């Protein structure tokens, strides 16, 4: 018995020596600039963007894991691939030393809750008669379903911040992911660490804001054409296609786009990420107005500062995210300030055309299955979109809160 133990001991010693020869030891203990130990850097060469530089932040504050180990199986314990995912963002991006409370606020913002879409659907479909408390988060937890919610889960369920980035193929692969849904710019090098940015490119916004009002398309001068791909040129479709296969044609873009401004130049963080308040509809969370900058003082309707607005030598200018300076034109004294136009919103005159999908319809095919994008399961009943016509036309004007505004049906 004891001899057996001794022989086993010798075998274990041989194993220990063999294991050591197979191992790559770190050259030294890796420290960040603040003196925190970060052994991940012994193997990982990734270089994220400046504010999250590897020498300053390291890997584990965002991606968790065990920063004191180098054995892969130990070091990668509790690893988080997407640190921006809202399920973990409180302890990754939102940790006390970094961006505290921000994820908590973002979770209450409309891009995470989708309350506007859910409320409108449920009320118009007769399932509710007062503002619904349902949010994407509550639906994910409860699994609650109804006809309107089934439609939401299958056709709208990928346009929110809770959507798991990279879980699905095709155009869905780039969507969602919490903080990184907006703040991530891919690295062109294969397997390179993506960059995190405050200069959020339009294409990040356009991944979702391309339906209903189609604001991100129109802004860039893209018009979603009917689904034929005409005019045919050189034996192929003449129209450009979006990632999800829809055809678009080029029209004159918004003046702000032409001047080089991106969405987040005007739509400030209080508006997009929220301030911890929970709204039902987008109109409640919108606070930037044309007159905030044009003839205004650079403050939104809720008093927040628009960082791009500056006073230079007595005149108002706008400095965009690329540090380019644009002069700001005040509203025309006669056309805009005239008493007869006092009820007009700026858009009523300046938005000459908007996409209009009066011919857009949906139908439910009962005997087919479709992916429920919240639960990730195929369930009975498939929703299909079809349309007779889609136009890019002068908008319908309507009366909303004592102003004449444009109405854009989606």
């Amino acid at each position, binding site marked *: 018995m*004891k001899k057996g133990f001794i022989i086993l*001991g010798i075998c*274990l010693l041989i194993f220990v020596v063999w294991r050591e020869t197979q191992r790559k030891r770190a050259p030294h203990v890796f420290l960040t600039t603040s003196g925190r*130990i970060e052994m991940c850097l012994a193997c990982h060469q990734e270089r994220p963007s400046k504010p999250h530089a590897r020498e300053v932040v390291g890997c*584990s504050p965002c991606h968790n894991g065990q920063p004191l180990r180098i054995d892969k199986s130990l070091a990668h314990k509790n690893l988080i691939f997407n640190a921006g995912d809202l399920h973990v963002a409180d302890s990754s991006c939102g940790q006390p030393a970094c961006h505290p409370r921000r994820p908590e606020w973002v979770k209450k913002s409309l891009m995470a809750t989708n309350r506007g879409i859910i409320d409108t659907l449920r009320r118009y479909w007769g399932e509710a008669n007062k503002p619904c408390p349902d949010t994407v988060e509550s639906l994910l937890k409860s699994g609650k379903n109804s006809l309107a919610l089934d439609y939401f889960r299958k056709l709208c369920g990928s346009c929110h911040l809770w959507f798991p980035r990279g879980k699905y193929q095709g155009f869905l692969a780039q969507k969602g992911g919490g903080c990184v849904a907006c703040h991530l710019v891919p690295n062109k090098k294969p397997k390179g660490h993506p960059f995190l940015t405050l200069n959020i490119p339009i294409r990040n916004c356009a991944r979702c804001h391309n339906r209903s009002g189609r604001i991100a398309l129109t802004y860039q001068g893209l018009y979603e054409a009917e689904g034929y791909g005409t005019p045919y040129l050189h034996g192929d479709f003449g129209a450009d296609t979006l990632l999800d296969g829809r055809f678009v044609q080029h029209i004159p873009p918004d003046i702000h786009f032409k001047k080089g401004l991106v969405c987040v130049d005007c739509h400030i963080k209080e508006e997009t990420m929220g301030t911890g308040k929970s709204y039902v509809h987008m109109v409640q969370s919108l606070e930037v107005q044309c007159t905030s900058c044009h003839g205004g003082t650079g403050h939104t309707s809720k008093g927040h500062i628009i960082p791009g607005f500056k006073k230079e030598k007595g005149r108002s200018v706008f400095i965009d995210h690329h540090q380019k300076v644009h002069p700001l034109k005040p509203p025309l004294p006669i056309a805009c300030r005239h008493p007869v136009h006092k009820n007009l919103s700026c858009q009523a005159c300046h938005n000459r055309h908007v996409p209009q999908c009066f011919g857009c319809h949906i139908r439910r095919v009962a005997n087919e299955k479709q992916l429920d994008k919240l639960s990730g399961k195929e369930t009975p009943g498939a929703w299909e979109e079809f349309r007779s016509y889609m136009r890019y036309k002068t908008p319908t004007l309507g009366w909303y809160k004592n102003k004449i505004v444009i109405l854009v049906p989606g």
Partner: protein
Amino acid sequence: MTKWLSWGVTATLLIATLSGIIISYPYHEEHPLISTVGIETVVPFGDFFRALHYFSGQLTLLLLWMHTVEALIKRRAQSRPWWSWSILILSLPAILFILFTGYVIRDDETGFSAGRIAEHLALSIPWVGKYMNHLFFLVSQDGVHRPWLIHVYLTGLVLGGTGLWHFRLRLLSLLDLGCWATICTALSLVWPASLVAPQETTLVKGPWFFLGVQELLRYLPPFWAGIAYPSLPVVCLFGYYWRPRLATLSLLLWALSYGIFLLMGACR
């Protein structure tokens, strides 16, 4: 007396000491956590010897505990003079203290908090608290320097004391040492030695045997929860020589209550 148990304690303590000597070379008390991580990740065979040190130390405590229970069951106290019994009993808190300082001197999340708590507990002892703290901890002023000294010196004392005791009868057989070395090696190959990265959490757990005290510290003043209550069993063991029944009953009650607190602490 089951011989394997008493020789087990000696063998594992010897293995812990030898492996401790090995890893004390790359260890720097000036930057304890950095050098501990260095042992774990940079030094060849470092993680193996650290785990061997860790598990042989844990095993020493467990075996010594079993050894004590066995001595109580077999009424060994009555067959020796009271001072000899008292000295033997002292080995239990000494080993526990060595193990505890072992956590402190690695200076990770667990060790750092454990050191700070130990310092404040020592200070809560009336009159001599300040001197005790100066002798054993003082981590807030002096880092892990003093716990490190105690870890080393006390091991020497205990090994010398118990070694004299046991080797007086017979030398530890090389075969026994080999067998226990195999057991410790097997344990260290299955599990890594614990090491917790400093983090911004709202819950830190101490060493496993300390969890009961940690739980109690939430409700009672430091002196009662951290000094008086944990020293009860030692007092009982001393008293066992004179009042075996009362001491046994108190020990059982204490063990039961500590078991409950330990579970409560572990489940947090």
